[in-house]
């Protein structure tokens, strides 16, 4: 094989900077050459803090499904490092392309949690302002966000202001044609777009082995001429280091970057799913032991960066955050039936005006009969 292609291939093993018990690894020469710099305590502390808040938020959201306050909730517990580190490493000017699973990432980006939960609450589709937050609506049709992110990255490059696009996608999503087309467009147009695959080993019930025979999903990059890496997705330090390197690569005009993060979804696909139908409890137990939050905590306690006071503080912050979410989500949202017609087009068609009038008359009737009843 030509050595000219070597740099497009991922490391043979997922990049790891922290062992499962929270000590620094001795990075391989490959890892050192690729410039995955071990992050500072300060940066890791920020990641840890956001993971703690994110996980509390995630638990709160799951609880809200039980109270019927959310139509459905796909938890990302266990994927916390992936949800937090790549997002914290973004700049404000960058665009983020999340999926339905990435609510924790949305709040890590600073979005209002109630706006972030709008889709799953069922009061509207996207509840936040994509332009203001530079965050695309959460994408449900698998992989369709990949060409969007390629186009957005290319658009930012055209504007020349240094922004990049971060595209999240699941392992299952990589099988869709749009993943392929998105990566190829990004490569051909040299777009500053980073594709971040959260390989949580399942697509609902379909295990990774049914999804691909690739040695690792990161080997898909070379087929597009895209620089690729695989990383231990439960190692917050490694995730942070690799995404940062990817962002540098993209911002330097060297084109897109593909990252595969090996991680695990500890909960079922959503609250409506029964994961016991397709996976063994001991697999879950095993992955529970690789908890990214615990791992980073151990490390930071070890360096002295994380003090008991700080821990208490953050725990309180997380509780407060969850309480606020709970409180606000328990209020019934306002949904105006006639708003259904407001944004189908910038200007409603005559046909929609007719239909709006019909609905308005029905509401009037209903209201009238309520009043007389």
């Amino acid at each position: 094989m030509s050595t000219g292609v070597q740099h497009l291939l991922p490391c043979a093993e997922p990049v790891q900077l922290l062992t499962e018990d929270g000590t620094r690894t001795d990075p391989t020469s490959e890892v050192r050459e690729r410039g995955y710099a071990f992050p500072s305590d300060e940066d890791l502390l920020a990641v840890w803090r956001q993971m703690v808040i994110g996980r509390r938020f995630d638990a709160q959201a799951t609880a809200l499904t039980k109270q019927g306050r959310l139509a459905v909730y796909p938890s990302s517990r266990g994927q916390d490092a992936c949800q937090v580190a790549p997002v914290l490493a973004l700049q404000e000017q960058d665009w983020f392309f999340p999926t339905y699973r990435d609510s924790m990432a949305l709040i890590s980006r600073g979005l209002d949690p109630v706006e972030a939960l709008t889709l799953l609450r069922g009061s509207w589709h996207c509840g936040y302002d994509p332009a203001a937050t530079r965050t695309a609506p959460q994408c449900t049709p698998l992989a369709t966000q990949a060409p969007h992110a390629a186009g957005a990255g290319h658009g930012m490059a055209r504007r020349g202001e240094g922004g990049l696009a971060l595209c999240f996608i699941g392992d299952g999503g990589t099988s869709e044609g749009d993943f392929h087309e998105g990566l190829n467009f990004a490569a051909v147009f040299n777009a500053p777009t980073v594709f971040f695959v959260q390989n949580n080993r399942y697509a609902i019930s379909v295990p990774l082995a049914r999804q691909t025979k690739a040695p690792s999903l990161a080997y898909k990059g070379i087929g597009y001429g895209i620089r690729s890496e695989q990383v231990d997705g439960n190692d917050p330090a490694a995730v942070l280091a690799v995404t940062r390197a990817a962002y540098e690569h993209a911002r330097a005009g060297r084109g897109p970057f593909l990252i595969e993060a090996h991680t695990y979804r500890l909960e079922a696909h959503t609250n409506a799913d029964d994961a016991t139908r397709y996976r063994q409890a001991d697999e879950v137990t095993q992955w529970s032991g690789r908890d990214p939050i615990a791992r980073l905590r151990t490390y930071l306690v070890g360096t002295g960066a994380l003090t008991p006071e700080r821990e208490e503080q953050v725990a309180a912050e997380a509780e407060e955050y969850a309480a606020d979410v709970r409180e606000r989500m328990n209020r019934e949202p306002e949904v105006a039936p006639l708003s259904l017609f407001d944004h189908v087009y910038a200007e409603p068609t005559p046909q929609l005006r007719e239909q709006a009038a019909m609905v308005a008359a029905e509401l009037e009737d209903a209201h009238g009969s309520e009043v007389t009843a």
Partner: protein
Amino acid sequence: MSTTTFAQALNRALRDSLAEDDNVLVFGEDVGQLGGVFRITDGLTADFGEERCFDTPLAEAGIAGFAVGLAMQGFRPVIEMQFDAFGYPAFEQVVSHIAKMRNRTQGRLGMPIVIRMPFAGGIGGVEHHCDSSEGYYAHTPGLHVVTPATPADAYSLLREAIASDDPVVFMEPKALYWSKAELELPVTTEPFGRAAVRREGTDVTLVAYGPQVPNALRAAEVAEQEEGWSVEVVDLRTIVPFDDETVAASVRRTGRCVVVSEAQGFGGVGGEVAARVAERCFHSLAAPVLRVTGLDIPYPPPKLEHTHLPGVDRILDTIARLQWDDQPDTTHLAATR
């Protein structure tokens, strides 16, 4: 007789087809061990083996295209699109290959493929989970489009679909999955291309299909009780082939017609039905054929879906617009024939 849900009827139809013909294969996303997100394929992998009912990678065009290749080798694939809107990635395979292969090859290569597709809403699903996409498929020559509304039809039409030598888009109304009937399976109902008069009446015909059949029946009852209108309800059962005979005979008898369809109205199946009825029954009509359909908007979020869906009230309001007071001279209208 025992109580059978729509979902159970479908599951049984798959079972009986798998048992009867070794060439039947069931595959798609999560249809294996999980039994499908709606559990329609529950237990099939356990009972027939991984070889006969299996999961695929997540790629709908791939699933449809893989089915084409298997059909070329004499298999009879029964594939699932997990939700209606997730059938769109397979659109090209369905429209340009599955639908056209028999025609392209002068009848030498048929495509005995069933595309199962849970469709329509009313279940509180978030965006992309409640589309009504039957209009796209019904407008595509070469496809059969089947929309059962009862557990008996769910069973019988699915058996017929799997036995068919042509492709069938088999649309399962999600909201009816848990509806029940007293029923002994197996059962054979009327074949493709026959609509069913689900309720007889003399004043007006409601034409409905799939998820709106129960609504039409409820509306008919209320109309009878509250307004004294005698309402006939026709369930299309299959959109393609279309049963002009039954529909036209009913409307010629009643002189009035309302078409009920859950999909966004513009350019959909509702328009086709209304146009056909108006063309064929022109001189029998005492009032224009009206439609009750979904609004011409993207399917709304759960908290607003009731505003979108054709409900009993909207059907009743529409029946009320059929110019009952005018008492048009139908004799004279008939004379212009």
